[in-house]
């Protein structure tokens, strides 16, 4: 069964295709997002198309499928309607699937389920990456805020950190936020004595 993957994120497309290959679905066509979309899909002759929900080409793609149905061309695909619950889960995960008419539900479901899991894994990775970036940025701010406190208050590093931590606990905010505020106010008012 040939599956075409259309995704604005090449990383996510790679993660999905890896997952499909692991599951033994090796007949894949990864569509190059910078190339002509319809021509590539037409050439690939897929039985299933997986596309990210927010892909800006979806209206064109659906029109292409509809026109090829009207002309009785081979690439006549429908929105996957085999299983409303699975389709809903796919939409929630951010993926939509189109399938050729007559493809059995038993064959579609594993593909869609797998795409959903891979999309979710990708979102999780992205979230972790964002969190790591935030943590890194916060650590920089905390280091700078400690240096400011040490200089201004003539205290050592553990004491400066204790000040930050105490303030964060009292005001129910993260240490990073307190540090950010100190760095900002130093940038604006540091030269006022």
């Amino acid at each position, binding site marked *: 069964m040939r599956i075409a993957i259309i995704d604005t994120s090449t990383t996510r497309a790679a993660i999905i295709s890896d997952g499909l290959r692991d599951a033994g679905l090796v007949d894949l066509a990864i569509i190059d997002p910078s190339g002509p979309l319809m021509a590539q899909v037409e050439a690939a002759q897929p039985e299933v198309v997986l596309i990210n929900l927010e892909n800006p080409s979806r209206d064109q*793609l659906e029109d292409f499928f509809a026109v090829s149905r009207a002309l009785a061309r081979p690439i006549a695909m429908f929105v996957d309607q085999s299983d409303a619950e699975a389709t*809903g889960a796919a939409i929630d995960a951010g993926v939509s699937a189109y399938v050729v008419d007559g493809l059995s539900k038993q064959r579609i479901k594993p593909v869609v389920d797998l795409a959903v899991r891979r999309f979710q894994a990708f979102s999780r990775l992205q979230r972790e990456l964002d969190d790591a970036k935030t943590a890194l940025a916060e650590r920089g701010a905390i280091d700078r805020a400690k240096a400011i406190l040490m200089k201004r208050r003539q205290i050592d590093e553990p004491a400066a950190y204790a000040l930050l931590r105490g303030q964060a606990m009292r005001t129910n905010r993260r240490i990073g936020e307190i540090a950010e505020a100190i760095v900002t106010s130093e940038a604006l008012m540091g030269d006022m004595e």
Partner: protein
Amino acid sequence: MTAEIFRIGFLPLVDAALPILAHELGFAAREGIAIEPVRDMTWATVRDRLIFGQTDAAHMIAPLAIATTLGRDRPAVPLAVPFVLGLNGNAVTFSTRLANAVGLTEELGDPAQIGAALKRLADARAASGKPLRFGVVHRYSSHNYMLRYWLAGVGIRPDQDVEIVVTSPPFAADALAAGDVDGICVGEPWNSIAVDRGVGHIALATAQIWRRGVEKVLAMRATLLDERREAVEALVRALHGAAEHFVAPGAAEESADILARPEYLDAPRDAVLRAITDRIRLVPGGEPLHYPDFMFQYREAANFPWRSQAAWLYSQMVRWDYMTFDEGDAAAANNTFRPDIYRAALAGSSAPLPGASSKLEGGLAEPIGAGSTQGRLTLGADRFFDGRAFDPDDIETYLAELP
């Protein structure tokens, strides 16, 4: 009590104004509800979020609401339209090359005359094996139906003499610039952006094809309307309040400020302001021209969901999807529009309420007082460019007489 929240999907278009302004300017809060706008880039995504419950309602091209109800291309999901977000507001923009070849002037021309010049060119291009190609925003859009109505009316056969493809609004100017299409029929501000970029020339406002054509609607799942009936009526009142404010003297500047923002249209404020004040710049560097019929967001009970307008859209769906007319489908299409909800929501307010739910479309050559159960209502001239009128009770005869 926490306010009932409506997540409302929209595309970056000027006629997404009412839900956005109802949210930003407090009309929703005044009705005890909250609106959370959800921005997308394709109608397919707006539709999917709506039918699978990621959103509660959507700014939607009216024919797509009907196609979804009828299950065109997918399992049917009945949608309900209790409120129309506006009439017209779209334009047909030619590439600079096509504009020159057809001989467009710096005025809004006559659709029949422009059509005659376009036909000569379209025939020549079709004969040479490189037919003219037009981009519309969606297969199930009023843009598609208006453009096709005009083309067929001047003797150009869509799908045979010219190609019609889908081009999403934010990419329409790019498609013109790249020569992928020779013309586009899209909503604002995307025609104006094409003109300002120097890649297009506005040939016609769609209001010249049908002066009072239904455009975007507020669509929701029919089941949601039943389950949250009271809140939906509050939403209708909030949108109506926003519509009344939208056309108030002096409101346009602030509306343009809000709509142009990155989280909404992410478009040049000047192009947005021109559209909402009915001033359209036809040619690059030209003086904007005031065309009062350009778009209707409030006047003449523009927000009232006339069943006859849904019926006209269904007639065009039959025509251009090459289907046969079906009594049951026609009824389902008409019933997508819910004037009963509109009336119930606005009873006792200052809003004029039409007495009828359906009317002869395209029958008025001049403004006329219309029967109303509340307030005074005047309907403006609503002619189609070819003078034909549409009787919603006799779609088959209408279709048989169309070219």
